[in-house]
C-alpha cells in the first residue's frame, strides 16, 4: 500500500469521500476515490448499481474551461477535426485536440452555451491543453480556465428520476445537450450547468457546480433513494463495457482518430469535399487515412475472451501462426458479461469482426475474438 501523498490535490468532495469510506488513490495528480468500503459497496457492486439504479461519481479532477468571443467557434475548429461552428446552442459534442502528425493530444466534450463554448478535458491533460489552446488561439478568443468548478456525474437508468426530483425540467434534456439549472432545496440555492451525457454507457448527467456548493449538491444527490457513490474503478469498467476510449490507454499522441476508430466524431463538413475540409493540425495524415482506409496499418478493435481469463493492458496479441499482430490497450473481466473484454490495436488485416486472435497471458495463449463495440448496449436518452 502506498503512503498517502501529501502533494496530491483534493477535490471539493475529498472530506465527503473519506466519510463515505472511500479508498483514495492518486489519479491525474488528485487523491480520488477508486472504490468505497462497506456492505454493498466495492467496485463490482458500484458497477452493478450504476447499471441498475444510479451512481454519483466525483470527476472534479477534470478540467473545465470557457472559450469566449465571436470568433471562438471558428478558432476552436482550427485545433480539432470536428464541426464546432454549426453546433446548435444547447448541444454538446465530442472532440479531440490533435498534434501536427494527427496524434490525439486529448479528447474532450464541448457545449455551445450561446455566450461561450464550455469545454471539459481530461484531468491529466488539462494544464497542457490550456497552454496549447492559449498558444494557438489565444489571440482570437478569451480562454477562461474554471478551477473553481467541481464536476459530478450522476449515471444510471434511475439518474433522471433522482435528479428531476431536485431539479424539475432536467428530464427534458436529451443525450448530448445541456442547460443552466437551479436547485432549490431546504434553504439551499445551487446554480449548476447540467448536460445529459457521461462515461458509463447509461443515461445520466454531468453537473458542473461551484466548489463552494459541490458538497451540498453531492449530499442532496446521495440522499435520494436511487443514488449511491461510485469510484473510479467502476467508472473504468463501465466505460470499457460501453466501448469508450480512455485517454492515455486507448488513445494518445501516437494514435490518430482514424486508427482509433473515431471516424464518427469527424463530421462531413471537415472531411475531404466538405465545406470546411481540413484546416486542423495533422489534417493531411488524418484525411488521407479517412479517404483510403486500406492504407491504415493498425486499428483499435474490441475483443471478447473465449475463456474466463482476464486480459489486461499491454498483453501481446498473436494470430493463429504465432505472429505478433497487436497489443491490448485496456482490458478486464466485464462485470456485466462475466467475460473478458478488451480494446486493442491490431494490424488492419486482423481487425474484421469475428477474427480469432490469441492473447498471451503469462506465456499462455488465451483465445479472443474481434467483436463490435459497445460490449454492453448503451442506453442513452435520445427523446
Amino acid at each position, binding site marked *: *500500500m502506498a503512503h498517502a501523498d501529501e502533494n496530491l490535490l483534493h477535490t471539493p468532495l475529498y472530506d465527503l469521500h473519506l466519510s463515505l469510506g472511500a479508498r483514495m488513490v492518486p489519479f491525474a495528480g488528485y487523491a480520488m476515490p477508486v*472504490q468505497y468500503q462497506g456492505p454493498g459497496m*466495492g*467496485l*463490482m457492486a458500484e458497477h452493478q448499481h450504476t447499471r441498475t439504479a444510479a451512481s454519483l461519481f466525483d470527476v472534479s479532477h477534470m478540467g473545465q474551461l470557457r472559450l469566449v468571443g465571436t470568433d471562438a467557434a471558428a478558432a476552436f475548429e482550427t485545433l480539432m477535426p470536428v464541426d464546432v461552428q454549426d453546433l446548435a446552442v444547447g448541444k454538446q459534442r465530442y472532440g479531440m485536440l490533435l498534434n501536427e502528425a494527427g496524434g490525439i493530444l486529448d479528447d474532450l466534450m464541448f457545449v455551445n452555451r450561446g455566450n461561450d463554448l464550455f469545454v471539459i478535458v481530461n484531468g491529466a491533460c488539462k494544464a497542457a491543453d490550456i497552454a496549447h489552446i492559449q498558444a494557438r488561439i489565444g489571440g482570437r478568443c478569451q480562454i477562461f480556465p474554471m478551477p473553481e468548478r467541481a464536476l459530478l456525474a450522476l449515471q444510471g437508468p434511475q439518474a433522471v428520476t433522482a435528479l428531476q426530483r431536485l431539479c424539475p425540467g432536467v428530464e427534458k434534456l436529451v443525450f448530448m445537450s445541456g442547460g443552466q439549472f437551479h436547485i432549490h432545496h431546504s434553504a439551499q440555492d445551487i446554480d449548476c450547468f447540467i448536460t445529459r451525457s457521461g462515461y458509463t454507457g447509461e443515461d445520466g448527467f454531468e453537473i458542473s457546480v461551484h466548489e463552494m456548493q459541490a458538497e451540498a449538491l453531492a449530499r442532496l444527490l446521495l440522499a435520494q433513494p436511487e443514488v449511491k457513490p461510485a469510484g473510479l*474503478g467502476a467508472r473504468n469498467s463501465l466505460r470499457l463495457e460501453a466501448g469508450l476510449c480512455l485517454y492515455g490507454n486507448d488513445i494518445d499522441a501516437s494514435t490518430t482518430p482514424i486508427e482509433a476508430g473515431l471516424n464518427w466524431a469527424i463530421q462531413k463538413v471537415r472531411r475531404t469535399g466538405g465545406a470546411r475540409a481540413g484546416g486542423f493540425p495533422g489534417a493531411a495524415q488524418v484525411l488521407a487515412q479517412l479517404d483510403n482506409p486500406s492504407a491504415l496499418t493498425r486499428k483499435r478493435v474490441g475483443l471478447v475472451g473465449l475463456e474466463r481469463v*482476464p486480459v*489486461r493492458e499491454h498483453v501481446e496479441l498473436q494470430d493463429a501462426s504465432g505472429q505478433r499482430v497487436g497489443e491490448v490497450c485496456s482490458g478486464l*473481466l466485464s462485470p456485466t458479461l462475466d467475460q473478458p473484454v478488451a480494446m486493442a490495436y491490431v494490424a488492419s488485416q486482423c481487425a474484421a469482426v469475428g477474427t480469432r486472435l490469441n492473447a498471451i497471458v*503469462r506465456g499462455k495463449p488465451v483465445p479472443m475474438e474481434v467483436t463490435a463495440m459497445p460490449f454492453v448496449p448503451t442506453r442513452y436518452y435520445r427523446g
Partner: protein
Amino acid sequence: MIKYTEDHEWVKVEGNSAVVGITVHAQDALGDVVFVDLPEVGKTLAQKDVAGVVESVKAAADVYMPVSGEITEVNEALRADPSLANSDPLGAGWFFKVKLSDAAQLDALLDETAYTALTKNA
C-alpha cells in the same frame, strides 16, 4: 500454526505440509476477486516463485510460494468461484497445499503480531 509473508500470503502448517492462501488484508486491498490462476499439482516450486495469480476487476497480483515444496492439491472450488477469496480468505478461499521441502523456512516467516504490525504501517 499460521505464518504470514510480507507478500500477504498466509501459511497454515499441518505436519510436513502446508495450506496457502491470501490474507484478509490482501483480498481487501484487491477488492472483488474475479479470477485465480492456480499452480499445477505435482509441480515443485522454490520459495518466492510465482505460484499463482489473483485478479480483481481493477488489479492483478501474483501469489508467491511462501516456502519451497511440491504442490499436492489446489482449491478447485476457488477456481470455480474466485469470490471465496473475499468471503472466506482464511478458510474456503485457500489456494493450494504444498509438501514442505525445507521446514526451516517457516521460522523466517512472520507471526500474527508481526504481520498485523506490517499491515498497520503500510
